């Protein structure tokens, strides 16, 4: 069994390297979306006040709620915390404080420790799959839709103003997936191939992928 385990790990590692995926060993899929949104919009935010909502210390209430009345507002803050616990929190620290949130509004994508929390996973999406010259229109459409989100979700509407936007530092290292697509003709052709149904690129059926065809004799 240990031998099989290591074989599987080696296989996973090989596929990751082949595809140029970065840091794919442990991640939350929702954070791929979050990171991709942060990169696509060039917008992240200071989510520390959002995290503060989970702080149970005495001074948190007055800091977060105007006209704080512990007896009246304490249960309301508690109810809001429970709502967030069950609907918005993606990753937590060991003390229970959230590290990342679902991006119901783009402001919920944190600006701190991006490469640790989000593991740069959004780069593969934004620079690799959507970074082709022909994807400009698609990117614009996604940006427009995401920018609407804070008006489409009550939590986005309520909490986005708590998160102050911050400039995003640009990555200088190359994106592995982008490099892999550029260096591998067949992988590049597969990414470029329009889906027969939607006409979108990067969505060709899996059985047309170069990875699948190479596994055949």
């Amino acid at each position, binding site marked *: 069994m240990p031998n099989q385990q290591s074989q599987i790990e080696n296989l996973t590692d090989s596929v990751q390297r082949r595809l140029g995926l970065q840091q794919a060993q442990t991640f939350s899929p929702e954070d791929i979306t979050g990171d991709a949104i942060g990169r696509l919009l060039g917008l992240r935010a200071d989510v520390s*006040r959002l995290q503060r909502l989970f702080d149970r210390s005495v001074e948190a209430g007055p*800091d*977060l*709620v*105007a*006209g704080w009345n512990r007896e*009246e*507002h304490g*249960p*309301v*803050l508690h*109810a*809001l915390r*429970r*709502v967030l*616990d*069950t*609907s918005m929190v993606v990753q937590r620290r060991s003390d229970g404080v959230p590290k990342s949130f679902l991006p119901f509004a783009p402001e919920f994508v944190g600006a701190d420790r991006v490469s640790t929390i989000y593991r740069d996973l959004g780069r593969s999406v934004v620079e690799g799959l959507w970074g082709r010259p022909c994807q400009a229109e698609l990117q614009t459409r996604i940006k427009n839709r995401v920018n*609407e989100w804070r*008006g*489409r*979700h*009550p*939590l986005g*509407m*309520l*909490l*986005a*103003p*708590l998160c*102050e936007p911050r400039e995003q530092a640009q990555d200088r290292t190359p994106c592995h997936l982008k490099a892999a697509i550029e260096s591998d003709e067949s992988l590049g052709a597969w990414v470029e191939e329009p889906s*027969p*149904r939607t*006409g979108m690129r990067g969505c060709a059926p899996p059985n047309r992928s170069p990875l699948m065809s190479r596994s055949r004799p």
Partner: protein
Amino acid sequence: MSTNEAHPANHPFVEYLNSLRTQEHGANPSFVHENRKIFLEQLRATAAWFPSDDDLHVPTRLDGLASALTEGSVPCDLIFLTGDAGDGKTALCAAVAERLGCTDELQDVTEAGGWIIVKDASEVEPERLEALLAERLFGRGPKLLVAINEGRLRRIMRPQAEGSPGGMAAARPALWADVIEPALRAWTDEASARRLDERMRAERVMALNFRHRFHVPAVVPGLLNAWTRPRYWEDSPACRSCGAASRCPIAANAKSLGSPAVQENISEVLQSAHFSGQRLPFRRLQAVLALTVTAGLKCRDVQTGELANANALDLLRYRYYEALFRTDAGGPVPVTPEAINRFLAPADPGLASTPAFDREVGYAATPDKDGRTPVRLGETALPSLEEQAVRFIRESSRSAADPDMTGSMARLTQALRRWAGISDVSSAEPPEPWRKALRYLREYATGGDGRDLRLAVTAAINRYHFLAALNEQWIARRQIAPAGFRDPARLALELDLGVEFATSLSSGPVLPEFVRPWLESAASEIYFEARPATGALGREPARLHLNARLLETLLNTGSGFTYVGALGAYRMDLARFHSRLLALAHEAESDPKVLLRVGGKTYRASCEPGANGAPARLRFDGED
């Protein structure tokens, strides 16, 4: 006398029906058009009474198209037949070729009566297909009828890239955008159907998309009537000479399925699947109906095989209602169900408990003193096989011979529930929720005003939001937020949209008049729509796709089932619908508010920006 008539173990009609099943291994797959003719000729060679092609044929509107093409009364030079595998494209090509005078087997490319017929574009080299199309599109050569799957049609007709039209696009630049692409859309409204109609006539090109076909109501009774004629069964040489006829589930099924009420019930079960998004190409429909007749059995299974000495309860496993709803292959003779069977479970009467009915089954199965008490359920006498099964349980109970009496009783009860639900003794009042949902949708899809449907959905959405009074007219302004659909903790979050929403319905696909006469269709993609009751009437509404399963859940709110978790996967659809309501409320400048319900009180939550560089803070204002 032929060999088979001497040995009725091979009833040719049973063989034929089993060959229509897609999950039958070891039989000729005559559901594939090319295999059908020779197989039927073999059957006729051994049994002269075997029905002719005309006797087996179920007329549909496509027959009208074949005739019209032959008569030259369809004003077009190029026809694309597209759809799923098993939709009947090849069969239509063969029918047209025959009427145009082609007596030979259909080839990949067949020329007859001024038409070139390509029965399956996948079997023709791309270069040849392109050449045929190019000739036709440049107005040269015979007319062209092409059966082609959607992917290939898109590939061959779509312009290659911006600024460099491919061969087909060069011949007719507007054909892709004006005709082909709109014809392949899953949903078209009245306006786009009118445009498509104009363009098809102008280009003299028809794209007949079989995916828009809704043929269940026409085909189910047609096929079952064609298959259950007494001359193929109790009056046939094969059954007359069979010693097992009195206990044969196949013969019993053929008899039961001749009943118009049973046919109508089965049709409604399958229509419900259609209105749930499960399209039924002709092949799949035919396969599941063939399964209801034979239950996947062969004559030898009943005569000399595993069922020769099976008890009456085991024989019930092979009745038509079990064949329709069972999803397992178990039983003395394993039979693999059709893929569609799993999708029929929501309409399965065997899974719905009615205490009064179950009690009656219990009474009927109670051992009697002399073993001669007639077996009845209510006022209804049971058919022979069901009666035998009840007597078997009575006897088992009396002799204590069955170590699993509880299991046997449960099997009997489930089988009889299914029998009552599908046979003509069932006229549930009020109708079961799945049937009620189907009838609402069907009424609107076939041209009704949909008023009852709209009111029922509006009321259900309001009920999810704990609205005390019945409100069928408007979506109330106060709603649970979309996030409230996964966990009870989220139910604390509410939304005051600040405006009520007027509701309406829309349906599609609307077929262009050019193709409508040739396809049985119904606008069975139905959307529930909502717009702010005041202002913003011109904006895109919030839309909720209504299918039979979702509607059934919504209708159940009327019986008090208002827990949103019951929506299952449809929670996300409803969440998106509410998300759009919120966006529309913003656009209507109604100032929507987020509310938190804590204990018995409601707080309005908002966020106020900090002054002089101070951070933003929340506000919780209690509402009276």
